[in-house]
C-alpha cells in the first residue's frame, strides 16, 4: 500500500467538478449540511416573506412549537446512536401529562409534585420499554409498537376525555416566559436539554458507550460495555423526556389532552434521521438532531405563512428526508 496525498494523481478524482466536491464536503458532516440548509431557508423566507417570517411573534411561535419535538429528539438520538428507538414516545407523553394533571387538578396536590409525578410516570413507561427490549429480548420496533397502543389506552382509561382546566399554579410551569424575549418555558427547557444533552453525548465517556453499542453490539459487549444496562438507561431517559414534554405541554394549555402527541414519534424519528442518525446505529449527534427539528419547523412555518395546506407538509418533509439521507452516498469515508 502506498499512502498518497488525498486524491492526488487520481485521474478520476481530478475530473470531479467543483459541484461534486462541494457536495462531498457537505455530506461529510451532516450538521454542517443542515446548518447551511437552515440558514439558507431562513434567509430565503426573510426575503420572500419580510412581513410574516422575521417577526418576533412568528419566531416565538416557531420556537415554542418545536419544543416538544426538540425535547424528544434528545432521547431518540441517544437511542438511535445505540442502535434502537422508541415508537411509544407520543403515548408516553400523553400518559405522563394526564397523570400530572390528575395529581394537580383532581387530587389538588402541589404543582411541583405533579410535575415530578409526570416525569416519573414517563420514566416508568421508558423502564417498561427497556425491560421488554433487553430482558425479554423483543425487538424494539415491536415492543414499542405494543406499548404505543397500551400507553395510549391507559391514558384514556385514566382520564377519559382529559383534564381541563388543571390549576393555575401548574399552568405556570408551562407559561412562565423570560422577561427579555418573552418565550415560554417549554422552549427554555428544550434549550437547556439540548445544550446539556449535546455536551453529555458528545463528550462524556458514559454516553460515548452508546456509539460503540450501535457500532457493533457484540464487540461492545466483549469490550466490557454493559450493553443491556445502557440500553435500559437509554429507554428510561427517553421516557423521562417524553414525560417532561407531556407535563410542559399540559401546563402550557392548562389542559391535559388524551390525544396529545399522536403521531409525534414519526416526526421525532424523521428529525433524528435527518440530523444524522442511522437505523443501523453508531452515528449521530444531538446538535444534528436539533438542527433537523429546526429545519422541519421552518418548512412547516413556510407552509403556514404561505397558507399551503398541511396536506403538503408531509410531502416536503419526506422529500427533504430522502434527499438528506441520499447525501450519505457521497461520503468520502464510505466503502468503495
Amino acid at each position, binding site marked *: 500500500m502506498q499512502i498518497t496525498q488525498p486524491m492526488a*494523481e487520481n485521474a478520476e*478524482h481530478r475530473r470531479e467538478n467543483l459541484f461534486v466536491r462541494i457536495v462531498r464536503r457537505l455530506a461529510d458532516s451532516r450538521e454542517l449540511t443542515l446548518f447551511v440548509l437552515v440558514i439558507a431557508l431562513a434567509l430565503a423566507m426573510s426575503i420572500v416573506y419580510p412581513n410574516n417570517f422575521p417577526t418576533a411573534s412568528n419566531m416565538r411561535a416557531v420556537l415554542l412549537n418545536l419544543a416538544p419535538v426538540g425535547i424528544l429528539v434528545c432521547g431518540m438520538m441517544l437511542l438511535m446512536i445505540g442502535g434502537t428507538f422508541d415508537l411509544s414516545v407520543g403515548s408516553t407523553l400523553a400518559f405522563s401529562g394526564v397523570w400530572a394533571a390528575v395529581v394537580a387538578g383532581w387530587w389538588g396536590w402541589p404543582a411541583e409534585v405533579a410535575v415530578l409525578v409526570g416525569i416519573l410516570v414517563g420514566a416508568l413507561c421508558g423502564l417498561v420499554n427497556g425491560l421488554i427490549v433487553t430482558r425479554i429480548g423483543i425487538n424494539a420496533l415491536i415492543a414499542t409498537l405494543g406499548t404505543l397502543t397500551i400507553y395510549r389506552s391507559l391514558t384514556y382509561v385514566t382520564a377519559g376525555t382529559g383534564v381541563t382546566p388543571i390549576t393555575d399554579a401548574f399552568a405556570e410551569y408551562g407559561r412562565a416566559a423570560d422577561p427579555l424575549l418573552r418565550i415560554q418555558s417549554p422552549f427554555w427547557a428544550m434549550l437547556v436539554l439540548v445544550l446539556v444533552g449535546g455536551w453529555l453525548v458528545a463528550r462524556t465517556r458514559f454516553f460515548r458507550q452508546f456509539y460503540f453499542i450501535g457500532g457493533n453490539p457484540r464487540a461492545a459487549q466483549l469490550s466490557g*460495555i454493559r450493553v443491556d444496562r445502557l440500553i435500559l438507561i437509554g429507554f428510561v431517559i427517553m421516557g423521562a423526556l417524553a414525560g417532561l414534554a407531556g407535563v410542559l405541554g399540559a401546563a402550557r394549555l392548562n389542559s391535559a389532552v388524551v390525544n396529545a402527541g399522536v403521531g409525534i414519534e414519526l416526526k421525532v424519528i424523521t428529525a433524528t434521521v435527518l440530523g444524522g442518525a442511522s437505523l443501523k446505529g453508531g452515528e449521530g449527534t444531538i446538535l444534528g438532531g436539533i438542527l433537523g427539528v429546526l429545519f422541519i419547523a421552518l418548512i412547516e412555518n413556510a407552509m403556514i405563512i404561505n397558507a399551503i395546506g398541511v396536506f403538503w407538509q408531509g410531502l416536503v418533509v419526506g422529500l427533504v428526508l430522502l434527499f438528506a439521507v441520499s447525501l450519505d452516498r457521497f461520503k468520502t469515508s464510505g466503502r468503495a
Partner: protein
Amino acid sequence: MAPRLEIKGLSKFFPGVRALDDVSMSVEGGEIRALLGENGAGKSTLGKIVAGVYSRNKGSILVDGAETADLDEKAAGDLGIGIVHQEGSLVPQLSVAENIFAGRQPTQWLGQVDVRAMRDRARVLIAQLGVAIDPALKVSTLSPAQSQIVEIAKALSRDLRILILDEPTAALTLTETEKLFDVVRRLAANGVSVIYVSHRLAEIFALCHSVTVLKDGRLAGTRSVTETSTDELIRLMVGRDVHFSRAAAGRKIGDIVLEAENVDAPPLVRSASITVRSGEIVCLAGLIGSGRSEFCEAIFGARRRRGGSIRIGSKPIDPRGPWDGKHAGIGMVPEDRKAAGLFLGMDIVNNVAATVLSKVSSGANFSNRKAEALAKNFVNELRIATPSVRQIVGNLSGGNQQKVLLAKWLAMEPRLLIVDEPTRGVDVGARSEIYRLLRALADKGVALLVVSSDLPEVLALADRIVVMAEGRTVGELPGDGASEEQVLRLATRYTASVAEVRKEPGMAEA
C-alpha cells in the same frame, strides 16, 4: 493460446491510498498461482477487482483472451469467476444451503425453491471438504471455521474457470486445510485456474505452481515455486529478513495469575482446567470444536459457566459478563474480528479507545486528544498501515484490522491477556512483530493465554502447551522441545468419541 486470465497495468485508488499500481500478471488454465504480499499490499483488492466487486481505475482484464469491460459481480460469475472472500460474505440470517445457492436456488414447479434438492446438493458440496454441516442451519449459528467451509462450498457451487481464494485457511485447522487442498488440486487438474492468497508460506510450497508477490500495490516479482525459496519470497515481500526462532528462555516466570479448575460450560466445555503464571505464555492447542475458544470465553465471562472455579491471583472470581472479566484484569482478543472484535464502521481511534474509555477521559469527559495519542502510539508500535488514525477500520486490509484488534486490548494493560488466534490473516513480517510483542508483554509480567490452530505458531510462542479435546483439557507439554506430532497425538487421542460428537448437527465443528 491466450492465458486463462491476463491482467494488464491494473491500478486501483482509494481516497488517500494507492492500493494497486500498474500490476500485470497472467495465469494459465490449470495453474495454481499464489498471491503473496504484506498486509495492505493489495491482494484482496486485486481479487475483488477480478471478481467484479470493485471497479478498476486503470488497466485491462482478459479472460481467455477476451476483454472484460464492465465487470460486475454478476458478469464475473457468468464468466466462471468465483471468489472466497477473506472477510466473509454470507448472510447470517439465512441457512447454509440458501447461502451457497444465493439467487440460484434449484427450483421446481412454478419456480418454487426445491428445498430438498438444494440441501442435498449443499451437503455434497460441503462433504467434499471433509466436514459435516447441516445445510438447514442458520449461518449465524456457525463457528468461524464452519462459515469458512460454507464460503468455499459456495464458490465451488458454480461452474468455475477461475477461482480466487483469499486466505481460505486462516480459520481452518490442518485436517480441513488438507481436504481443501485436495479439492483445489482436483479443480486445477480439470483446468480451472486458481489464485491463492495466503500468508502461510508452507502452504504455498505445498499447493501452488507459481507465486506472484505484491509489494505496496506494485508487482514485486513472479516465480515458479521450484525456483524460489522461503527466504527469497520474504525478501520480495518485506524487503528484509524475518526470523521466527523461539526466544531464549531467559524470562522470569512468576506467581500464578489464572487458576481455572474443572470449568464446565455446556455444551462445548465439559471439564477444563488451566493455570497461567505471570510472565508465562501458555498456548491452548486442539482441534476445531475442542472447546478452546469457549473455555476462554467462560474465563472471561462472555459465556455462562455452570460449574468449576476461576481464580485471578488467588482471588476467586465469578464473571457474569465480560465487564467482570475486564474488571478482574482479563483482556480477551476474540477469534472473529469482524463480528465480535471490531467496530468496522468506526475509526482506529475509537476502536482502540473502546476498552479503555476511562483511560482516555479526563474526569467524565472523553478526550479525543488522549484517544488519538493512544491510537497513534499503537499505529507506530504495531506498524499499522493506514493513511491516518482517523481511517475507518472497515477500510483497512485484513491484517491491519487484526493489529487494531490487538491494540484495542493491549491498551487495557491486562494482567491476563487471552488471545484467540493472534495472527489470523497477518503477514510474515507483522507476525514476527506480534510474536515479539506478545513476548515483550510476558517479559513485563503479563500472563498470556494464547489459542492457536497454527502449530508452528504454538511451538514458536509457548512456554507451556495445554491441549484440549472434546471440551476437556487432556494433556500438557513443555513448550521447549515439543513437536507438532506430540501435540496432534494428544489432540486426537479421543477421535473415536469425536466421531460421536459429530452426529449432533452443528455442534461438531463449532
